């Protein structure tokens, strides 16, 4: 039996963690991730879970302690956002090379400076090249389910890589919606327990983790990491099918919304995709054939499938909630990459919106669609939505 609960996005993630009941959680509070830590701490305080928590003194130590726990054999989790992710970056970057299956929810927030606590994707987009699997969530429901999927994905023996599960700070993180929480027993059977083949606390079988590797082996180890990443798509699909049996939902690499016959489409991540889907509905009602693609699995990036999904759309606008200063915005760059192989490519336009939590409205998205439909696009140009004149 599932139950519907009014939950914020952060609380939905804490619910997933309650059901997972990890061996160890080490985290440091940072806006807007803090409620995850608080809700989970209360579960511990009330004996709802029996996880060992480590209330560390910084995010650097949060990820370090998570790594220590995972290396020791625990199913260990952390959670962070923005400056926190930036502070722990050194250790975050070490985790994939250590092949530790750590799952970490990220509540996306702008990066300083200027300091800003509101949503954009600058934090996790800064960590796209270091070997974490990344999954973006549109709302609390998705964040909750992605957490369950992430655990299985990370710990799969063909993968053994860490996963970040993103949701938008405040917009998703602090907004309360009805979230369907699936049956504890079924979820627990799905997530199971971690069964590492090697771990420090297996003292009868000592092993060395994190050695120095010189030019003779470093490259080879990194190449193996890439091999593991290449297994992700397959395992993601298989695990998603298994999760579907509990949730009745599908877990595609991305969501295609009214894309098949679209004259124009936008690609947009996370919560703003919800607003954009409303806009699509309204414009469809007005007789305009527009559609949307919402990436979910962002690392590894499903280039081939994206290419197939977008190949027949005459014009595509990509809306990024972060910038890559001096380069194409991150999602735009990926879409452009994905489409390169086509003989006949859609026209493309890059848009940046919502930095530092600036709102995006349906009227903004409608304007984007009309601009795309007009054909007034320039694939070399970055346009900005809602920027002060």
């Amino acid at each position, binding site marked *: 039996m599932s139950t519907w609960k009014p939950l914020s996005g952060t609380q939905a993630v804490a619910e997933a963690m309650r059901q997972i009941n990890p*061996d*160890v959680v*080490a985290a440091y509070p940072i806006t807007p991730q803090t409620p995850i830590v608080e809700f989970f701490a209360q579960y511990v305080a009330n004996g709802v879970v*029996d*996880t*060992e*928590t*480590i*209330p*560390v*003194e*910084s995010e*650097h*130590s949060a990820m*370090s*302690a*998570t*790594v*220590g*726990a*995972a*290396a*020791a*054999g*625990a199913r*260990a989790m952390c959670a962070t956002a923005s400056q926190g992710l930036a502070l722990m970056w*050194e*250790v975050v970057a*070490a985790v994939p090379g*250590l092949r530790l299956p750590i799952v970490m929810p990220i509540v996306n927030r702008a990066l300083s400076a200027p300091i800003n606590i509101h949503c954009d994707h600058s934090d996790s987009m800064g960590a796209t090249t270091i070997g974490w699997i990344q999954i973006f969530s549109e709302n609390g429901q998705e964040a909750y389910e992605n957490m369950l999927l992430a655990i299985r994905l990370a710990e799969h023996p063909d993968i053994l890589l860490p996963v970040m599960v993103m949701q938008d700070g405040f917009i998703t993180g602090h907004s309360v919606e009805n979230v369907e929480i699936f049956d504890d027993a079924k979820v627990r059977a799905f997530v199971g*327990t971690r069964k590492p083949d090697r*771990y*420090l*606390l*297996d*003292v009868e079988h*000592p*092993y*060395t*983790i*994190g*050695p*120095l*590797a*010189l030019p003779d*082996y470093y490259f080879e*180890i990194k190449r193996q990491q890439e091999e593991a990443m290449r297994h992700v798509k397959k395992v993601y699909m298989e695990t998603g099918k298994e999760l579907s049996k509990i949730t009745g939902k599908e877990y595609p690499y991305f969501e295609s919304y009214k894309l098949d016959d679209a004259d124009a489409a936008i690609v947009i991540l996370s919560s703003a995709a919800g607003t954009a889907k409303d806009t699509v509905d309204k414009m469809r009602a007005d007789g305009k054939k527009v559609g949307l693609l919402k990436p979910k699995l962002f690392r590894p990036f499903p280039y081939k499938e994206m290419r197939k999904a977008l190949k027949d759309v005459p014009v595509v606008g990509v809306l990024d909630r972060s910038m890559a200063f001096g380069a194409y915005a991150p999602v735009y760059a990926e879409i452009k990459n994905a489409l390169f192989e086509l003989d006949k490519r859609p026209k493309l336009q890059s848009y940046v919106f919502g930095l530092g939590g600036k709102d995006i409205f349906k009227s903004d998205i409608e304007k984007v669609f009309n601009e795309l439909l007009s054909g007034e696009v320039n694939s070399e140009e970055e346009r900005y939505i809602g920027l002060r004149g």
Partner: protein
Amino acid sequence: MATLQEIMSKPIGLAPGHRMCSGCGISAIVRAILAASDKPIIIANSTGCLEVVTTIYPYSAWKVPWVHVTFENAAAVASGMEAAYKSLRKRGKIDKDVNILAVAGDGGTYDIGFQALSGALERGHNFMYVVYDNEGYMNTGNQRSAATPYGANTTTVPAGSKSFGKPQWRKNIVEIAAAHRIPYAAQATNHNLIDLYKKAKKGFEADGPAFLAVLQPCTTNWKFDPALTMAYSKLAVETNFWPLYEVENGKIHVNYKPKNRKPVEEFLKGQGRFKHLFKAENKHVIEKMQTMIDEEWERLLKFEESGIEL
């Protein structure tokens, strides 16, 4: 009490064949500490000499579970290991008692790892933290750390026509550790292995965090004859440059009091890093060093005598 021979011939977790410099005393420190553990041990090692020389992939000198992550986080990694131990034990996934050891150099302890160390001591994890203190970034060729003594010549604060080397004294890391109200903190050397062994044993047996600072004269970058490592350790103690003492539940006990304290020059001479101090114009540096050492020693004795808890 085991004899020195018994201690050092115990089969332990560090295999020979590692790549430490000729004359390096780190392995003696590690051997004595591993020998003092009567339970299986799991180790978190920060980046530094010990990590580099024991694990060049695909080889490992470690016959005990060992992890290295980054430079500044051995204490935080050990915190996670301890939490995992408690959790897996509680959940019946493992059934053995273990000792948890974090080991780091002085750079990873006094400097870049200071916050992680303080956090772990404050949270009260049941583990022992050992710093092998070679008084600077010796693995990378003698850069200054907060453990580098006054007057030493390093590549980042070199002696020159306008400089006598490091103008600050070192941090008192043992007292700082003890100020976290941990049950055990101590200072030891590798020439007195019985003392080190006893301290490691107390550290492992303490109910809560233990901290151990062990002097490790570095033949390569202090620049002395590799045959003299233990001699320099001994001179550091005989000059009161590095007193052997412990802080047990806040109470200071000085483990060794030299009958005739040797002048600090005895320790300084023959070390390349202090060579410039023997020029006439740097006489005042040695004099100041002697004053600081004597004052620190007097202060330590007063603490011991007073019985006041740190």
